[in-house]
């Protein structure tokens, strides 16, 4: 072939929300951007639940929600605490969430990301699908390009943005993070898309039009392991999934598939799914390391964004929005570096600074101890949910016993099972880890 390797301003590795956000903003500023994606098309490898928040997405593409393929806007958020036979449910619905411009949406990423890919292309970036990046090309300690698996597959650029997701080969190979994620810093999640007629969904979840509901489930939903289960309503399907820390799955010898089947058969979950036909089955890792799991974010010629940088707030199921915003900050740092024609580690550290000054860092800081805490306090996924559900049952059962004696019984039963000072410590610890 006569083609010479071309030089780009920016190479983005990975067409997930992080990479596409960076590529979109940089291409709009006129930079020559190429995105390398191993999947058939953007979104083909994405497994998100998923709830997409409007506000952060508008920071990338203002007004996106008027055109993008979205499923439903979320009007109601439910949280369930499950035990084997019971569920304690909390729900919040607000009229405000049913009004434009809406707060959040359920999406099927394969559709949404494909649309976003079109916007990225329209902005002038090139998306090269079905191409795997195998390693960074280094010159000393500088990243100067990437080597892909295709013949004549080397590409060079001023800066590489590693948006290659949770296993980030690039961050590993450049030495910004450890080789493997520790198994207690990643959850393995599985998800099914279950088709159901629109009317059935609207009926079962008490919604009309394009309104949607999200349900987050704890405790028995993951067999008492640290993790969550979820059901999100799409137009004519449900996204149903769950995930737990890999270390705990391994310890218990449970496969994620067992876990999902267990959750789907729970007496309060099963009726919602009844009659549905499973259309897709997907599995993916979620980084749970939080602040302590965060790698070094930049070096000579390279920035790390999104899941590759472990930017997930598992408390609030925020991953894609942190990915998009980190992509935006990376784009800002690259634009500044371009202006100064300086792609050194010092110049690109502007990205670290932007991230540290943002709510992303503050939120991750706030929950920095949460993962460790819950990992070492299984009672929050077994004993306390049981206590809560049994207390409710006691109070709601009319059997000739006075309410006051019932309260006393609940109180003393609890104390018999766990020392009061332990309980005090548990809750103090839990509060400290999320407050």
């Amino acid at each position, binding site marked *: 072939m006569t083609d010479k390797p071309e030089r780009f301003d920016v190479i983005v590795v990975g067409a997930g929300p992080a990479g596409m956000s960076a590529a979109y903003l940089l291409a709009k500023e006129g930079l020559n951007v190429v995105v390398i994606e191993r999947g058939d098309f953007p979104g083909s490898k994405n497994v998100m639940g998923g709830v997409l928040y409007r506000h952060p997405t508008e920071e990338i593409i203002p007004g996106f929600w008027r055109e993008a393929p979205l499923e439903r806007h979320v009007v109601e958020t439910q949280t369930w605490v499950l035990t084997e036979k019971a569920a304690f449910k909390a729900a919040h619905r607000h009229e405000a969430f049913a009004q434009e411009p809406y707060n959040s949406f359920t999406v099927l990423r*394969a559709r949404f990301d494909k649309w976003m890919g079109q916007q990225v292309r329209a902005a002038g970036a090139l998306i090269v699908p079905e191409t795997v990046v195998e390693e960074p090309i280094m010159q000393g300690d500088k990243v100067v390009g990437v080597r892909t698996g*295709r013949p*004549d597959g080397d590409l060079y650029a001023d800066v590489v943005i590693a948006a290659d997701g949770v296993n980030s080969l690039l961050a590993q190979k450049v030495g910004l993070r450890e080789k493997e994620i520790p198994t207690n810093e990643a959850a393995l999640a599985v998800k099914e898309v279950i088709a159901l007629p629109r009317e059935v969904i609207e009926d079962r979840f008490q919604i009309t039009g394009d309104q949607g509901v999200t349900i987050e489930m704890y405790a028995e939903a993951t067999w008492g392991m640290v993790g969550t289960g979820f059901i999100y309503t799409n137009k004519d399907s449900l996204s149903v999934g769950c995930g737990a820390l890999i270390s705990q799955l391994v310890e218990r010898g449970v496969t994620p598939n067992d876990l999902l089947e267990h959750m789907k058969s729970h007496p309060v979950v099963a009726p919602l799914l009844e009659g549905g036909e499973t259309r897709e089955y997907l599995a993916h890792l979620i980084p749970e390391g939080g602040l302590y799991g965060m790698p070094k974010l930049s070096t000579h010629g390279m920035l790390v964004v999104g899941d590759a940088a472990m930017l997930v707030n598992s408390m609030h199921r925020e991953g894609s929005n942190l990915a998009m915003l980190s992509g935006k900050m990376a784009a800002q740092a690259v634009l500044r570096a371009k202006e100064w024609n300086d792609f050194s580690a010092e110049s690109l550290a502007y990205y670290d600074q932007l991230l540290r000054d943002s709510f992303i860092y503050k939120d991750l800081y706030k929950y920095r101890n949460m993962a460790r805490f819950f990992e070492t306090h299984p009672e929050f996924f077994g004993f306390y949910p049981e206590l809560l559900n049994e207390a409710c049952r006691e109070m709601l059962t009319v059997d000739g016993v006075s309410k006051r004696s019932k309260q006393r019984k609940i109180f003393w039963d609890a104390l018999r099972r766990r020392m009061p000072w332990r309980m005090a410590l548990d809750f103090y610890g839990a509060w400290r880890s999320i407050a």
Partner: protein
Amino acid sequence: MLHVVVCIKQVPDTTQVRIDPETNTLVREGIPAIINPFDMPAIEAGMQLKDRYGATVSLLCMGPPQASEALQKALSYGADRGVLLSDRALIGSDTLATSKALACGVEALGKEMPVDLVICGKLEKRRIRVRRVLEGAEEVLDAPLPALLTVLKELGEPRYASLPAVIRGLRTSIPVWGVKEIEVNTDEVGLAGSPTQVRRIFAPPQREPGEVVSADGEAEKIANLILDRLIEAGFVEG
């Protein structure tokens, strides 16, 4: 120079297409579009002719505007150019009308450079010699050019395109030709030019699994069993 036209088509990824059991229509929404897998060997055939005889390879595709993606991808295997036939008047074309439009497209391409060979999926110098694979035998055929060939998947998948070729393919903007450019009569294409009409699409009913009879060993016993069945079914007179 040898000018080869390869016809390709963009189709929904059949591994993901479902038929809605209620409405009996194809559920295409959200299903990725790909190059028809049967066309991949045709592309490879074109590329082999290019490698061996320095052929100029043009790609021709009829479809909606977004089918240009298929052409861009096919270009990355090394073809010289791609043309998309896309026009409102072509919508609803059946096999006959599509063939008509493609034939006119080939003719239009031939005005720029005479076409020697057209290759289609699943369906070579001044004369070509081809080896046709038959069951258990091979047939060698000679034909004068121009000719139309169809190739089977035995010919092989296209090579893994190089990165510069992929990038070049993605950068190429695909010219779109309508009925005017290919000079076709509008009542010979589209719905108007299509004698076949789709009445109904339905999923074939699930076939009942066949009866499995087990009779170990004795040939005579098995033979009698089969005979009984055949008589029962009325295939053999008792």
